[in-house]
């Protein structure tokens, strides 16, 4: 799974390639921080964890927030995986990585490694984003309105003012 940020419009003062690279540098962190703070792509709190999972997670000393994080492997792997610059604009694709994390189970108030590895982070990300079985969707992989505001503000810090749209 991935998202794409596209820039179009008239020629900016800073070369497009520099702008694209700067955005590719800044955007993944915004997604990580917002998701880590428990907010979805609309800046609303994620659907709560089930009572049993929350109890197990907090008993094991983990952060009780709904932040899609145990090992941080998923959020930590989010990066801009491709930056394509054309004469008209650029597209940046942001996605979780292909690594895996140690599969963890919460047993008797302790987080135990099962000795196996998780599915790849790209697969885990899709499961969280779209939901699966009894697990509700917790859409996280996009720039939320607040992420967009922060990104624009940071681009302005660099003297860049450009229109953006995403899909």
């Amino acid at each position, binding site marked *: 799974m991935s998202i794409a940020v596209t820039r179009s419009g008239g020629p900016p003062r800073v070369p497009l390639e520099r702008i694209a690279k700067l955005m590719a540098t*800044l955007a993944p962190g915004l997604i*990580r921080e917002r998701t880590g703070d428990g907010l979805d792509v609309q800046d609303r709190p994620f659907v709560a964890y089930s009572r049993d999972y929350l109890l197990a997670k907090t008993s094991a000393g983990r952060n009780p927030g709904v932040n899609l994080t145990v090992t941080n492997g998923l959020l930590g792997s989010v990066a*801009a995986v491709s*930056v394509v610059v054309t004469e008209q604009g650029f597209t940046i694709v942001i*996605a979780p990585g292909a*690594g*895996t994390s140690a599969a963890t189970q919460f047993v008797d108030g302790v987080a135990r490694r099962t000795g196996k590895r998780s599915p*790849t982070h790209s697969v885990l990300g899709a499961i969280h984003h779209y939901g699966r079985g009894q697990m509700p969707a917790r859409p996280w992989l996009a720039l939320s309105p607040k992420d967009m505001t922060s990104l624009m503000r940071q681009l302005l810090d*660099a003297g860049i003012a450009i229109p953006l749209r995403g899909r």
Partner: protein
Amino acid sequence: MAAADKSGPIADAAVADLESIRVQLDREIRRALLRLNTAPGEDTLIKAQGRVAAQVAAQIDAAMKVRGLTAIEGVLRDRAIESALAALGGVDLPVSVTTEVNAILKSQTKDIADVFNDASSTIRRAIALGTTTSASLSDLVDGVAGVIGTSVTRAQAAVDASVMAAGRTAVIRAATEAADGIVNLVYLYSGPKDSRNRPFCRVHVGKALTESGIAQANNGQGLPVDAFAGGYNCRHVWSPMTMAEAQRRRIEILE
């Protein structure tokens, strides 16, 4: 920005590659073990087959090195470089990043070599014990399969640590290059804040460091902070942001 594609742009190659290595290794070692003589019609290993057992152990040793270690090193290198490339948005790796990724690979390769050497010793001991006590061949085969499985799982952890380390390094280098001359960046120490945090992570999580702050930081593990953050298998990553944004958000900046 509304939806996300369902298909991942990065292949899940590391997991598939390592599983394929495990299967090949397992198959080859089973074949080698079958050279050990058993009693006619039984599963019991015949005592005093020292020379055959030594040959089998040597064959397994070679398989662990070629099918296991060398193949996994290849996966490790490919995935770490892919991770660095991903962090750079798919552009060519600058020499500075390549050098740092190579240093990461060198240390991780040594870890994997240690894992496979341990596994080879364990298998050699198991063969020696099995052929002196007339143990069951199927028990020996199962035990050896378990050792191979554990080794590959440990190797997977090393591959993942390298992927993370190469990614962290490349993020900082890419950000430095992108921001050069147009804006000051800092790096938020991003990730979980819980009872499992190492002392270094507890102090730094939620704070931002300048590049020189990162260079001066010491995680007490003898590992570079830019690549390994709080240490081996650290869960934290660097999230670049402009210094002005960090100040607006009242994030403490460590220089």
